[in-house]
């Protein structure tokens, strides 16, 4: 195992989500003033990579596509113990859907060749499509496994991987190169220390634009995305909003009566 690449997505800090607002004119989210954070599941992907680094000395590279303002998130990822980070950042990447995003990340990964394993979080907190891991793997022409709860080496180049499925698990065996996307069950991400935060400041953080990736502008960004947002609607509120009054017992009786009237009990 020479090199593992961990895909990390900076997302608006979930703690500040209630401050997100919709611009009524442009119908885009106003993210101003909302701090960035590492997508929580990506920490589990990073932890899985770092465990392999601890055991085999594998080089761990963080790869991310985000505005350059998200650099502190990559520093945070470096402070968990990764060796270096690459941030793919370009005006031309803006508006990419999952397929265009995957093309950009796959191009970044090709530039980081050779690699053995790619680690992703199973989904991101903000858009939650869970599409990018499978799409990166397809574009690279390598196999992938989602919903990973456990991985271990059986031999130098043979892995046993456990995958969560409905009401159970599937046990798979696979060889690198391979892309794995991790669930929360997989591990407990390590904490960083003050010394590691200092050490991370000295590690290499490269910024690559499309001048480095050389992707055809027709295949990236808004123009290169097969899906388009046609409309964005604020959901109309059609609920009754009936407020029950009185003591807790009176409210409980009122609720039971209502549920009975509605034929629910």
């Amino acid at each position, binding site marked *: 195992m020479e090199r593992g690449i961990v895909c990390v997505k900076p997302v608006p800090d979930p703690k500040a989500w209630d401050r997100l607002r919709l611009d009524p004119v442009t119908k885009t989210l106003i993210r101003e003033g909302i701090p960035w954070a590492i997508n929580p599941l990506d920490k589990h992907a990073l932890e899985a990579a770092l465990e392999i680094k601890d055991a085999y000395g594998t080089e761990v590279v963080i790869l991310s596509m985000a505005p350059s303002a998200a650099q502190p998130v990559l520093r945070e990822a470096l402070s968990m113990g990764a060796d270096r980070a690459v941030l793919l950042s370009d005006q031309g990447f803006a508006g990419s859907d*999952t397929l265009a995003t995957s093309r950009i990340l796959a191009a970044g990964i090709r530039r980081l060749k050779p690699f053995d394993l790619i680690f992703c979080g199973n989904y991101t907190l903000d858009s939650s*499509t869970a599409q990018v891991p*499978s*799409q990166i793997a*397809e574009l690279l022409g390598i*196999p992938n496994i989602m919903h990973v709860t456990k991985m271990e080496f059986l031999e130098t180049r043979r892995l046993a991987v456990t995958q969560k499925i409905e009401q*159970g698990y599937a046990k798979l065996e*696979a060889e690198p190169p391979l892309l794995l996307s991790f669930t929360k069950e997989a591990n407990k991400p390590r904490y960083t220390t003050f010394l590691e935060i200092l050490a991370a400041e000295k590690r290499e953080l490269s910024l690559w634009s499309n001048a480095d990736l050389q992707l055809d502008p027709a295949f990236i960004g808004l123009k290169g995305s097969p899906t388009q947002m*046609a409309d*964005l609607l604020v959901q109309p509120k059609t609920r009754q909003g009936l407020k029950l009054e009185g003591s807790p017992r009176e409210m409980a009786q009122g609720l039971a009566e209502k549920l009975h009237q509605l034929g629910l009990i």
Partner: protein
Amino acid sequence: MEKPQIWVFIEQRGGVLHEVGLELLGKARELAAASGGTVAALLLGANLASLAPRVIAHGADMVLMGEHPLLEPYRLLPYTAVLARACREYHPDILLFGATSLGMELAPRLAARLNTGLSAHCLELRLDADGHLLQMVPGWGGGVVATIKCPERRPQMATVMPGVMKKRKPSQRSGEIINLDLGADLDLSGPRVMEVYREGPKETPLELAEVVVAGGFGIGGKEGWQLLQELAGLLGGAVGATRPPVDEGWAAEEQMIGQSGKTIRPRLYIGVGISGMSQHVVGMDGSEVVVAINSDPKAPIFAVADICLVGDFREIIPPLLEEIRRRLGRNKMN
């Protein structure tokens, strides 16, 4: 508008159909009725003949069957190869997948191979005047619904969570069964399945329950959680959760409702100690009747509730249990 070919991927593992495929057939029939299109079901695996009639009864005009001993159990790369080949041969306009563990892995890989668009976790699907599929997906950060289109590439692909669409009652209908050309060699590369194991059947799965009692951070601990279980048990329902109780370990990951969890549409949803962040609300807003119990009168959950109870759930639920038991005539048994 041309008559579209609407395809639905029907998931089966070991000869057991996943309900979500039948639910999607219900929606596909609606789209076909609106456009004069046809509905085809895609069924992959070994020994599929006995499954096809049920798929037809639930709305398929045609079953495209990829039958091969090596297509059971499911493996991502062989499945992708067979489906990509079928799409290149028949050029479907629309292709729908359930957002199950299998569908979430397979649909994006296939979309990338076909160089087409895919939307995730659609709440509703409609056709516009030009015959484009309008895909309504939950947008985060304020209870919004984004409408996604894929105007230029085909097929227009979308995933839908189990429980979102309604399956039709099976009916006597006839349908054609077509065996897919699997090509000279199946792509058998990629991970090998060593073992598949299931945990025994548990309570009613959340997405199928008619009544869901959901708890949030306001429940405060496992003790409070037991009250929710008691209430759900009495109503014959299931217990759901927002993210914090899952993170705290009071509830299991499978119980999470919302953007990164399950989408539910029960007849009755009772949210207890839930603030009502949009990430949760997108997963429960399709419920028929929403009841909210929260001690904070300003909790956003009240804005999306039919019946609002402002107060401490520890004081409201015990008399509620009593009252429901009395009405159900079970008071003597306790």
